[in-house]
């Protein structure tokens, strides 16, 4: 079956997949989390929590930009 979805181009979908893999299987995973695996505080917050929160914030901002761009681009595709 085609992996084409009507709302965006194939290369953008491929980009989404790569973004997803890097984010959830690399940046959010232990080898990198392990760098923050010490119970010390950074700016009054545990380093681990600080790192996760930073990534969450990035996820929300980057994903919002990507989705809004795709929504605007869909009208062009149509």
């Amino acid at each position, binding site marked *: *079956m*085609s*992996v*084409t*979805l*009507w*709302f965006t181009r194939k290369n953008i979908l491929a980009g*989404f*997949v790569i973004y*997803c893999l890097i*984010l*959830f299987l690399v940046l*959010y*995973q*232990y080898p990198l*989390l*392990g760098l*923050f*695996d*010490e*119970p*010390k*505080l950074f700016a*009054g*917050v*545990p*380093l*681990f*929590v600080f790192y*996760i*929160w930073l990534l*969450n914030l990035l*996820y*929300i901002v980057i*994903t*919002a930009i990507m*989705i809004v761009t*795709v*929504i605007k681009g*869909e009208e062009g*595709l*149509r």
Partner: protein
Amino acid sequence: MEPWVIILLGLAAYILLVLYIGYRGYKVTKRTLEDYYLAGRGLGVLILMFTIFATYQSAYMYIGVTGFTYEHGVGIWYSNVANLLWAFLFIFIGIPLWRLGKAFGYITQADFFAHRFNSNILRLIIALWMVLGLLPYIGSQALATGRTLTTISSGVIALGVAVMLYAITIIIYTSLGGMRSVAWTDLIQGLLMLGLLFVALEVLLGKVGGIPALFEKVYAIKPELLSIPGPKGLMTPEAWLGYLLCDALGGIMWIQNWVRFYAGKSWKTLALMTFLVPIGTTLMFFFSMLVGLCGVVLEPGLPTGDLVFPALMVKHLPLWTTAGVIIGLFAASMSTVDSISLALSSSISKDIIALAKPELDESSLVNLGRLFVVAVIIAGCIVGYYAAGTYLVVLLTLLSLSLSAVLFPIAVAALYWKRANKYGAIAGIIVGIIIGVKTLLFGPEFAFGIYGGLWAIIGCALTLIIVSLMIPVSDKEARAVEQISRVLSSPIVAMVDINDAYKVETAIKQKYGAIISRLTSNA
């Protein structure tokens, strides 16, 4: 006046509010399956955001996350990261299903699988698996909420009475107004659960001296709580990866989440959920984690983590805050159980009863569905009541998610792999279920460094691939593949006409196929 009477009065006001919303939903809901179970596929951004958020966040956030943090520390963030992954997967699973649901009139989760694989056996297996897998989850919600009310009232309100009060309220507003009532109450409940948890946190932080002071105190008491794998070594790399993936993939497959993919007003509405819902879940996890850490400072030495939230309420919150938090807990729990019961009732009436009695019309199925809402909630509460000696909110939830995640490879293959067939899907589910039940219920939970839930997904995927490669797809499956592919790929396809268009095209090919081929070859 006794403090618990005041709490009960606050709770009564909340219950009256949701019942009123249920009644309003009943007044505007038509007696069609689409309107009753999917609110006419018309949920806008705000309502859809809160109904997805509130459906996924439950008593788990109040009792489970606080308790897990109390025992195992900040490793609970795996579940928040899973929420983000789950939301991101809407792009590949949720949005396509929205369009397919609209094009082919899917109401239940199994509708999609039955259409794609042309198999009512698969429909039955998926429907039954979801019913069996989610009844204990309803039970855990009823149990967590009922227990808290019993604790707050110092045992005056017995567990059975608390669970009954909880069940009757959900039964009334859910069975009356269906998805519309559930979604509207989810908006109120989502705001209440987030806002009232924040209020409780503010009071608790005031007692420990603020956020920086809280972390410093926890660091002094038990520093391992502020890092992974935590003081008991639970959150190892294998556990982090396994729990995270099973949580996210199981969340996608949970029937109550899945039907929300059909209910959005447009694909854009659903696309916005990929980042709007994580804003709410990230905030909620942060609040819950801090409450759990407040418990480490204020209530050390509890026998089990799931007791920390009720203990904090009883001993450290003023009466008005406790009343608010109880309402928040009820809201969190009810917003999940109403959605599960509605989704399961749709599945029982459409996937099981309609299969046995195809002569039933939509109005009859809606009426039967109302009865099944009652049956599902009562059955779930009975399970919860008889499991009253256990405190396993996070682990019970993870178990339910992991067993649901078995279906994930089937969903991906159904959407994106044309060779996948019903034999592969059925064999994959059976193998996945056997591995999942064996590893997660009987152990060992980890084998060769991989979480049992992940083994179940891997087993399902491999079986699906091998069997599908051995047996060709049937003509009916090939036709469904072509229909689905066309609907998903065309930017200009008119959704309402897709079935008719396919029929016309097939008829033309059958009648004039030879002439068309000749003309094409000449050209």
